[in-house]
């Protein structure tokens, strides 16, 4: 469960990127965050995984106030949240398997268990046959699936995605959305920031609309 109370974010002294945001995303929800470029979508996601701290307000994730979370505890939050970006952020000096395995290595999991879980996750996303490939040799859609596999393999309760289809064609975008729908069907809360209204329309899910850092609609489920 994600709850925001009167959250504002100011970068330096300029106009706020987010202003007095109140938001409730229950466990198991699937929500889009929409709005024009610069509306504050990315900032909202960054607040959720504590990459940025709110200037004002409280952010509760599973009842824990992460606005006050000390830096030394942030890794516990990150283990609850999977994150996917437009540019995939895959490491070019590791193959597909190793990229996904990284999320389990940092947990200190034994090698065998890592191999088993990574294999199952890659299989579920239909990219197990590219396990030994360098991620740079894959198509955009495949790379995004590897990124989703990495974000999901440690079984977080929340999946955040920032413009996950930004670099993909319509068909690949549609397939990635199907992956998100599947992840959500297994009980994971999914929050996707996008300015692709076409996709949002076809998915028919909850829409949280931002403009100039303010909530326009969709604050409550």
């Amino acid at each position: 469960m994600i709850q925001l109370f009167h959250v504002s974010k100011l970068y330096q002294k300029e106009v706020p990127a987010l202003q007095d945001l109140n938001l409730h995303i229950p466990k198991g929800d699937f929500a889009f965050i929409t709005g024009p470029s610069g509306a504050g979508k990315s900032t909202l996601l960054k607040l959720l995984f504590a990459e940025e701290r709110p200037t004002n307000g409280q952010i509760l994730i599973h009842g824990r106030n992460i606005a006050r979370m000390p830096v030394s505890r942030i890794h516990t939050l990150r283990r609850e949240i999977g994150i996917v970006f437009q540019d995939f952020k895959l490491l070019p000096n590791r193959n597909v398997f190793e990229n996904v395995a990284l999320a389990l290595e940092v947990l200190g999991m034994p090698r065998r268990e890592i191999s088993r879980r990574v294999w199952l996750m890659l299989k579920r996303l239909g990219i197990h046959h590219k396990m030994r490939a360098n991620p740079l040799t894959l198509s955009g859609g495949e790379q995004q699936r590897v990124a989703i596999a990495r974000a999901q393999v440690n079984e977080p309760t929340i999946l955040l995605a920032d413009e996950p289809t930004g670099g993909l064609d319509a068909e690949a975008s549609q397939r990635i959305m199907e992956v998100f729908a599947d992840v959500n069907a297994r009980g994971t809360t999914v929050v996707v920031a996008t300015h692709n209204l076409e996709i949002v329309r076809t998915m028919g899910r909850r829409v949280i609309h931002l403009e100039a850092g303010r909530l326009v609609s969709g604050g409550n489920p």
Partner: protein
Amino acid sequence: MNRLLSSIGRAATNLRQSWLISSITIGIISICLFLVGGYLLITYNLQGVFEAWKDQVLITVYLRDGFPEDDILLLQDRLSSLPEVHAVTYTSKEKALEEFGAMLGEDRFLIEGLDRNPLPASLQMTPKEPYRNLEGVRTILAAIGDDPLVQDIQYGQDWLDRLDKLFYLLDFGALVLGLTLSLAAVFIISNTIKITVMARRDELEIMRLVGATEGFIRLPFLVEGVIQGMAGALISLGLLGGVHLLVSTRSDQPLLKMLNLDSLSFLPLTAMGAILLGGMVLGGLGSLASVGRHSR
């Protein structure tokens, strides 16, 4: 333990991937330690020369005429039993004259036919090792105290004074050189490791995103720094060994002649251990300094 092993594994991978920067780091550490080690090597060898000088620290107690020999021997016993004193030898008036005569050689006729021996009897004292300096000699002088037999005491005060200053300067030099080079090394190492941190910032970013602890992220860098420091130290020791071999096997050995040395000794084990440990500490500090500044 498992974590340390996996950190060593990751550090090894990192070293392989950024071998050029690692080599530069190792090179810098070895140069710094080579300079420090070279200084130690030189002073350590000169130490032998200085120790030899110290052996010459001698306190001569000149005695008044007219006391029976028994009294003198009693004084000799008292002085020998002082804890700071190594040995006391007695030179009688006759022996002093004999020695003086031997020194004069052909001119010894100058002292022949004297009706009275003008040379005083004396006791020559050599201090024990830790007292072969100005302070030690002063301790002994205080212990001798006022004695009716003693006419005068000579111990080459100026010379001892200079020897003391020299030893102080050598220690001070080692300290200043060691500190300066260590600081420089830490600074340079932290910067070179910063480059590897920058080169791997994508990896670090992702490790943080998937919930790695700061310890998990930093440990490999620490291990990497320590390994580099150790490698640098070993190389510097190798270089020092090479230089040592080169100098000590030169046939003419002008350096040895100049220093009045029979042979050049290498650093003692403790100094080699200190250099090795120093390298590891430098490498570890350098890496911590770089990762610390660049996390978050």
